[in-house]
């Protein structure tokens, strides 16, 4: 089957904040309006709306339904929701456009990450019979993975500190970022462990945030933006949920997803990797074969602003913006989900 050409044609993000007193709907609405204004389309021109969020984060069953208030559902619209990061909603929207039913889709995601103990909430994603009752803590699971990687010599603490130092430095150029810093890797290595072998800067900063992107097909995309970010490959792979049954020192799902998305076909200028822990960026780079010629996370990445369920779609937005700006020709956007990089979604986009 011939695939349709589909591109990201616009993005909008809300600057990160903590302990937001707005509702999710009040946070989303202005961002969606800003995006529609930026792309220059009316709500009536959106053929499909797709939303990513997590009810566990608000503690309210079906809380995602209220987000429909933020997009306006009269006259009736076609919409869907994934209980996951907005990047997976983007994947659904991409499939929807591939069916030929619609030409334009708006994808949005939100996470009020600081309204609950996100470390506990995310660990409820684990196997409910054998793992979740142990209440392992999401950071602790990542620390186990980091320990395994260090022991195996796959990563070093210095490399991890270098990832953090670079991300905090790059964050100065990103209005969305929350954590910024000018420390050297040596400075960071001198900091105490918070969850040995992780230090505070090895873990992403949980923030409240939301974002939205517009996808469009073919000539519609060309009409809406001068240089669309064409999706040339997109693939989602999952490692087993049994934590003891998979390798902690590599990410085979990320490797397969990258291969299927065609990452190695040509040079990647910019890669926006969704790595909430420093060692995970190193694992992802290994898995996807990203070398020195690729600029990793010029936005500062999820490490400096991690609105859970929106941080993955933020990577797509950042990568697409570098195509719009002409600063990159071929980019990679990635989203992970679940403990220890369990799920990986990889997308390659190109400018024309």
């Amino acid at each position, binding site marked *: 089957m011939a695939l349709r050409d589909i591109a990201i044609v616009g993005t909008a993000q809300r600057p990160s904040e903590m*302990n*937001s*007193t*707005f*509702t*999710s*709907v*009040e946070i989303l*609405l*202005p961002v*969606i*309006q800003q995006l529609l204004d930026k792309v220059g389309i009316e*709500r009536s021109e959106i053929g499909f709306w797709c939303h990513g969020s997590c009810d*566990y984060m*608000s*503690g309210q069953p079906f809380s995602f339904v*209220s987000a*429909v*208030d*933020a*997009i*306006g*559902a*009269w006259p009736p619209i076609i919409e869907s929701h994934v209980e996951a990061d907005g990047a997976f909603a983007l994947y659904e929207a991409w499939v929807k456009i591939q069916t030929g039913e619609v030409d334009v889709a708006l994808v949005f995601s939100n996470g009020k990450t*600081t*309204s*609950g*103990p996100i470390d*506990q*909430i995310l660990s*409820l994603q684990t196997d409910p019979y054998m793992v*979740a*009752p142990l*209440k392992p803590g999401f950071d602790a699971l990542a620390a186990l993975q980091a320990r395994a990687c260090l022991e195996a010599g796959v990563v070093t603490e210095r490399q991890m500190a270098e990832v953090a130092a670079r991300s905090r430095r790059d964050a100065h150029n990103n209005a969305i970022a929350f954590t910024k810093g000018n420390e050297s890797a040596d400075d960071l290595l001198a900091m105490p462990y918070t969850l040995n072998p992780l230090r505070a800067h090895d873990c992403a900063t949980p923030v409240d945030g939301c974002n939205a992107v517009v996808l469009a097909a073919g000539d519609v995309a060309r009409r809406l933006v001068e240089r669309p970010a064409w999706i040339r490959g997109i693939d989602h792979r999952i490692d087993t949920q049994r934590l003891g049954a998979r390798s902690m020192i590599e990410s085979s799902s990320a490797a397969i997803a990258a291969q299927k998305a065609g990452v190695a076909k040509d040079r990647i200028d910019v890669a926006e990797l969704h790595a909430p822990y420093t060692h995970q960026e190193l694992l992802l780079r290994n898995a996807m074969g990203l070398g020195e010629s690729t600029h990793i996370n010029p936005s500062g990445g999820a490490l400096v602003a991690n609105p859970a369920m929106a941080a993955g779609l933020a990577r797509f937005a950042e990568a697409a913006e570098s195509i719009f700006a002409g600063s990159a020709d071929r980019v990679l956007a990635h989203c992970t989900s679940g403990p220890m990089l369990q799920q990986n979604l990889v997308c390659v986009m190109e400018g024309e």
Partner: protein
Amino acid sequence: MSEADGLVRLRQPIGVTYNWSAGPNATSHLAGLMNGKFVGKRCPSCALVYFPPRNGVCPKCAKILAGDVEVGPKGTITTFCIVNVPFLGQKIKLPYVAAQILLDGADISMQHLIQECEAEDVRIGMRVEPVWKDKSEWGPSLENIQHFRPTGEPDRVMGAESGAS
């Protein structure tokens, strides 16, 4: 864990504490209830008055709701059901009436309890008024109202003259 019938059962309670924020729009609504007032919000685009102001936006226009509008306290029953079925935690004597009430000046109805009349006398269009609990029991909640009761005024014909669309 019990193995009385040969099955292993595990009880695994999970509790998570949230800092829930009502948001600025619902806050004026909740603060109003603490002062014995019904405060709704008006959509700046279609002018509909929302009580309660939902998530602070007009879902029809996708606009942030604007000014506070005091509505009620009297209202009209737009639909109702008579509850005859007992259930766990039942606090009210059966049968009782749960009704949708359109407060005067509002464009969406809210649900509340109808008391101080026979269930079979409740009807669409019936005028009702709130009976508030003692002030010492008030909080930021519609539960400040014990129930609504008939006012005895003539019924209001629902439809043409209603602001709702």
